[in-house]
């Protein structure tokens, strides 16, 4: 219970810091919208961690051939996709107030759509195969390919293709790697930790529900 209260307190701190402190000054226009940084970036990073965790569980399945690891991989990827959709949504709000429209097909926006499609295809693949062993084999290999593509779509593609997003080549306002002030770190660090704890909590609950459905606790 203590960590749950801790999570509550951290998020309250993040919310207070987001709205009470000066907004992060990465851009030259509309600094107020940069407050969304404290939500958008941690959520996007948790997406990446979640897909990495899905791959890790996929590898464990391929090593041990225990279907529980496949379920863990699926759960991790499903939650990762929810966080990915939140990152895309918050990015779209940022786009509206910074570049004028909700969607500009900027390389970063395009790459997150590609990432979402890759993981929607992962769930389509799972639902298309009836045999649980065959499904787990295919999904585990796909989770590895999915994470490799996540590295490319999150960290490489938007950094080599000129675009509107902060951090894109030619971005003179924030540079290739955003430099954060001490005050920004005071909110960003706890925000990343809080979203990660939230993800772990959701993952644990999902796995408990799975165990209950299976009629055994593992």
């Amino acid at each position, binding site marked *: 219970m203590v960590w749950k209260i801790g999570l509550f307190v951290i998020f309250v701190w993040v919310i207070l810091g987001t709205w009470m402190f000066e907004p992060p000054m990465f851009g030259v226009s509309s600094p107020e919208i940069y407050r969304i940084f404290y939500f958008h970036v941690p959520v996007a990073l948790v997406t990446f961690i979640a897909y990495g965790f899905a791959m890790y569980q996929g590898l464990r399945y391929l090593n041990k051939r225990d279907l529980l690891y496949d379920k863990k991989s699926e759960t991790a990827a499903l939650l990762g996709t929810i966080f990915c959709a939140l990152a895309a949504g918050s990015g779209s709000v940022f786009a509206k107030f910074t570049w004028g429209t909700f969607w500009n097909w900027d390389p970063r926006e395009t790459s997150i759509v590609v990432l979402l499609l890759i993981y929607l295809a992962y769930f389509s693949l799972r639902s298309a195969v009836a045999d649980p062993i065959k499904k787990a084999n295919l999904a585990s290999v796909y989770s590895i390919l999915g994470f490799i593509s996540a590295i490319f779509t999150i960290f490489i593609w938007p950094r080599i293709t000129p675009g509107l997003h902060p951090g894109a080549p030619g971005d003179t306002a924030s540079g290739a790697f955003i430099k954060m002030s001490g005050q920004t770190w005071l909110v960003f660090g706890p925000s990343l930790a809080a979203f990660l704890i939230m993800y772990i909590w959701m993952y644990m609950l999902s796995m408990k529900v799975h165990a209950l459905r299976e009629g055994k*606790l593992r």
Partner: protein
Amino acid sequence: MTTLIPMFVSLVIWLVLWLYMLRLDHRIKELEKNVQ
């Protein structure tokens, strides 16, 4: 004032979400006890 309203709304959303998660957690724990 312009930041107070969204801050209050954010706090309310988080409180509701946190309470929902706690309730979910509690219900799952009860189900686990029944299974055992």
